[in-house]
C-alpha cells in the first residue's frame, strides 16, 4: 500500500513525514515522534487518555488516522507549558491534587484546554459534562474538577490583568 506524505505542525514545529495510511495518529505521536506524554488507554475511543488537539479541537488520537492531520496543527501535552512556566491547567492539577497515577492526566489536560477555550467560566456541571469522554480510575474526579476550576480562575485573572 502506498505511503502518503504529510506536513503538519506538532507543538509549533513543522514536520514532513511519509506515513502508511493505516498508521493511527496516536502511534504517529508516540512511536514516530517519540512524544510519549500522550497515552494509549482503551484503544477504543472510550477512555480519552489519548486526547490531543488538532487545530484546537480535542480528539481521541487512537481513532484518527495520521494521514488526516496533513496541513493541520497538533498540540500534545508536551506543548502545553512554555519554557518558564506551567500552563494554568498543569498548575491546577498540581495544586489541587488532580491526579493519582497520572495515566489519564495528559488526556484530561488536553480536553480541559478546549473546554476552557469554549467556556472560560464553567460551572461544576459543565466541567463534568466537558470531561465526560475522559475516564479516571483513581481520583473520583472531584479533584480534577477543582483543578479545572483553579485553572479557569487563574486564566480569567490573567485575562483581567492583561486588560
Amino acid at each position, binding site marked *: *500500500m*502506498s505511503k*502518503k506524505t504529510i506536513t503538519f505542525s506538532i507543538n509549533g514545529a513543522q514536520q514532513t513525514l511519509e506515513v*502508511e*495510511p*493505516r*498508521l*493511527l495518529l496516536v*502511534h504517529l505521536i508516540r512511536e514516530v515522534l517519540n512524544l510519549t506524554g500522550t497515552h494509549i488507554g482503551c*484503544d*477504543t*475511543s*472510550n477512555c*480519552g487518555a489519548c*486526547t490531543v488537539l488538532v487545530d484546537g*479541537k*480535542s*480528539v*481521541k488520537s487512537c*481513532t*484518527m*488516522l495520521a*494521514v*488526516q492531520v*496533513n496541513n493541520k496543527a497538533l498540540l500534545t501535552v508536551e506543548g502545553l507549558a512554555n519554557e518558564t512556566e506551567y500552563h494554568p491547567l498543569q498548575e491546577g492539577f498540581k495544586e489541587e491534587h488532580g491526579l493519582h497515577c497520572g495515566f489519564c492526566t495528559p488526556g484530561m489536560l488536553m*480536553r480541559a484546554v*478546549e*473546554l476552557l477555550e*469554549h467556556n472560560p467560566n464553567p460551572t461544576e456541571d459543565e466541567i463534568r*459534562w*466537558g*470531561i*465526560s*469522554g*475522559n475516564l479516571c480510575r483513581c481520583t473520583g474526579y472531584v479533584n480534577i474538577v477543582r483543578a479545572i476550576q483553579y485553572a479557569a480562575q487563574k486564566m480569567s485573572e490573567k485575562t483581567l490583568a492583561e486588560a
Partner: protein
Amino acid sequence: MIPASFEYFNPQTLDEAISLLEQYGDDAKIMSGGHSLIPMMKLRLANPEYIIDINDIPGLSYIREEGGFLKIGALTREAELEHSELIKSKYHIFCDATKVIADPQVRNRGTIGGNLAHGDAANDHPAIMLAMNAQIVIQGPQGSRTVPMTDFMLGFYQTAIEHAEILTEIQIPIPPQGSGGAYLKLERKVGDYATAGVAVQVTIENNTFKKVGIGLTNVSPVPVKVTDAESHLTGKTISDQIIQEAAQMASDASSPSPDLRGSEEYKRAMVRVLTQRAIRRAIEDAQG
C-alpha cells in the same frame, strides 16, 4: 489495535469521490468522522481495501434554513450541531440528542451524515429524523436524489445509499409555530448506545395535537417510526390517558433484543416510560 492495510484517497470534490466509488465499488468505504469505521477496521469487522476520506471536500458542512427546510450538510460535526445558535434557538430535539451522543471528543469528529449512512439502528439520529419527517439527499454519478427517511433505513447496516452514492444533505421540514421536540435516551454511561431512545416532535394548537412524529432508537433491527401512535394522537386533545395509550403503542411497536443492557421486557417498559416523558417534554417545548 491497528487496522489492516488500505489505500487512502482524500478527494477534494464530490465528483472525484463519486468516481473513486465507481472505480472501487464494494471494496471502498467512505470515511467521514471515522468513529464507527475506524473501530470496526481495528476489530477487522470492516476490511475496506480503499478508504475515501471525504473530510477535505468543501461545502458539505452547514446548518441553514432554506426553501422551507432546515438543511444540514452531511459532514456537519455533532459538536457543530451542539453549538449552533440556530439549533439552540429552534430545534431543541437536537439539543437533547447531541448531549447524549458519545462524548465531547467524539462529537468533534462524528458527523450527522455518518451517523445516518452507517445504517446502525443503535445510532441516535435515525429516530430523530423519523420523528421530524426528514428526507435524505444522496448524490451519485447520475446526480442527486431525495429519499424520505422512512425509506432510508432498510435493514441491519443497510440503507438506501446505492453503489457509488454519497449522502450529502439532510432536509427537515421547518416546523410551524407551536412545535416542539424532545429526545430521551436511557444509557448506562456516557458514550454507550441507548438501552432505549425515543424521539418526539409535536405541533400543538389549542391544546390539541396537530402533528406528531415518534421515532425509536435501538429497540429493533431498523429504527421504528411509530405511525399508529402518531395517528392516535393527531387531532386529539392533550390528556394523560391518550399519552399513556400512545406510549403503550410505541412499546408494542418495538422489538428489542435482550442483551447486556437489559431484557426484552425491560426495554419495552423503558420505551413506554420514555415515550410518555418525551411526549410531555415535547409538548412543554411547543408551548414554552
